[in-house]
């Protein structure tokens, strides 16, 4: 019997963006409020899993042509790179830097390298979660 997932799929298309936006908000808010790379990554992975539930694996692979193993490795590189950047300035490993930077469109912004470390965590969490789900679910 062929089932019709129209309601699920339509709802997913709308809800997906809200979840992704919320995960990005959580990710950036991590320094001052609860949140950060880990929950942000899990929420993003949750959004992709919702896509997986509403569609099938092939469709999702077509929408998001990402190799999640590579994504994990890139995330690790971000995290290690931020931490090891301190070696260039001969300060202890993991020493972070921060400052006010003037950006073209956004104007005056307070930036901290811990965000790049968090981005690494974010990518690793998404990569690992999706690798696990894909490996378990992919055995068709």
């Amino acid at each position, binding site marked *: 019997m062929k089932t019709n997932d129209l309601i699920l799929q339509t709802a997913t298309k709308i809800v997906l963006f809200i979840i992704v936006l919320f995960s990005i908000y959580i990710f950036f808010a991590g320094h001052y409020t609860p949140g950060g790379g880990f929950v942000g990554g899990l929420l993003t992975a949750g959004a992709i899993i919702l896509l997986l539930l509403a569609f099938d694996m092939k469709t999702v692979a077509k929408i998001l042509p990402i190799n999640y*193993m590579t994504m*994990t*490795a890139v995330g690790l590189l971000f995290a290690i790179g931020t931490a090891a950047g*301190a070696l260039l300035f001969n300060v*202890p*490993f993991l020493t972070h830097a921060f400052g006010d930077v003037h950006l073209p469109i956004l104007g005056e912004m307070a930036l901290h390298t811990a965000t790049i470390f968090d981005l690494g965590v974010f990518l690793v969490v998404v990569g690992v979660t999706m690798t696990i789900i894909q490996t378990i679910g992919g055995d068709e």
Partner: protein
Amino acid sequence: MINFLLLPILIPLITGVLLMFINKHVMLQRWVASISAFVTVIIAAMLAHKVHTEGIQTLNLSNWDAPFGITLVSDMLSALLVLTTSIISFACIIFSFRGIGQEREKFNYYASMSFLIVGVNGAFTTGDIFNLFVFFEVMLMSSYVLIVLGGTKIQLRESIKYLLVNVISSALFVIAVGYLYSVTGTLNMAHLSERIASISADGQLGIITVIGVLFMIVFGLKGAVFPLFFWLPGSYYAPPAPVMAIFGALLTKVGVYSITRTYSLLFYHEGGTIQALLGVMAVLSIIFGVIGAIAYWDIKKIIIYNIITAVGVILAGVASMNEDALAGSVFYIIHDMIVKAALFLLVGIMIAITGTSNLKQISGLIKNYPGLAWTFFIASLALAGIPPLSGFVGKLLLIKGVFDAEHYWTGAIILMSSLFVLFSVMKIFINGFWGKPLTYKGEEKAPVRQLMAAPVILVILAVVYGVGADFVFPYISQAANILVNPDLYIDAVLKE
């Protein structure tokens, strides 16, 4: 460069990540993995030299002062162990080129190997008890991957046991750290030592003793001390030779190192109870290890039970807590890591030739493989502690220390155990290498010549280590000195 002591952790970590990108290019992976392992050896040797000339190296990560941030501490003991770890990992990686098979190499084998080295080197270098737990987990996660990689039936079965035991012991580790934190309010080991000293001075020894015993259970499970060694013979039997070598040489020794570190630095005020318990556990480990080693007719099992004996011998030295015994323990732990790795690799070559690990089906290997036979012979003599070789000096110092501490029975049992250890490995030599040569199926396919490189390097090192004991002894005694005088460690970390 102030981050120098971090490099033996950082280099394998970056290598592991890079290897994840190229996990289908086997040749490239071999080059990257072996070059990085070689560079790590050189860096670790430079670090040991630096610690020798300039004293204990400390690094406060992310520029937070000592008790508040994570401190990495490289004293002589950890520098020597990091150097030994790097050498063994290099040997195991070059052994893996021909000894592990392409189907495993394509599934992140070298990356897992690199992460294992990160965990081991990190556990040896850290000065923070919770960070020690994290590095334990890094090491264990990688070892889970390595033990199951390949997916044969026996590997799947044994990895479940291994995983269960280690998950439970890790949970106990967290609980123990939780208790310790609620009593002392700190996690930095040097600061912990100070706090525990003041608590002991107040006469509240009971809770400290309980936590000390809990740590003993945790590290005993990791390091395979009697009666907590039950998981080891099965689990180490499953994986292929290079993985078995790196497990046998490194993983239990991290547990032994942790016991040495915590009892010399944290729980030394307490003296009596824990020390006596450690002594009893060590002696029983020796006894049960040799019983296992002489009972089996399986070459892998014989070497595996010798690990338990060696752990017992090292801990018997730690339980005696005087400078000679500790120097002996340090000397012996490094000797044992090198020789165990060599023996496991040699056993791996024997299995590659004969296709079996049953000693009764092997005979007369010396006819066609004299190099293998004599390398094995030298490694066995080194393991048992025959004078010019590396096992002798360590055991001699250790026994002197044990007798000085008036543990006469322990000393006698260590001496007896050498005899049985010699018997167990000579059993392999006599039955496997002497006798009528047999022909084995698939014998000509075994790349013996290429595989021999790694164990030969290790055996030469073991011989040099024994013959050049005079040269290495200043390093060893420096390591033992810090274990006996924890104030040196505390002053170096807290800079008072």
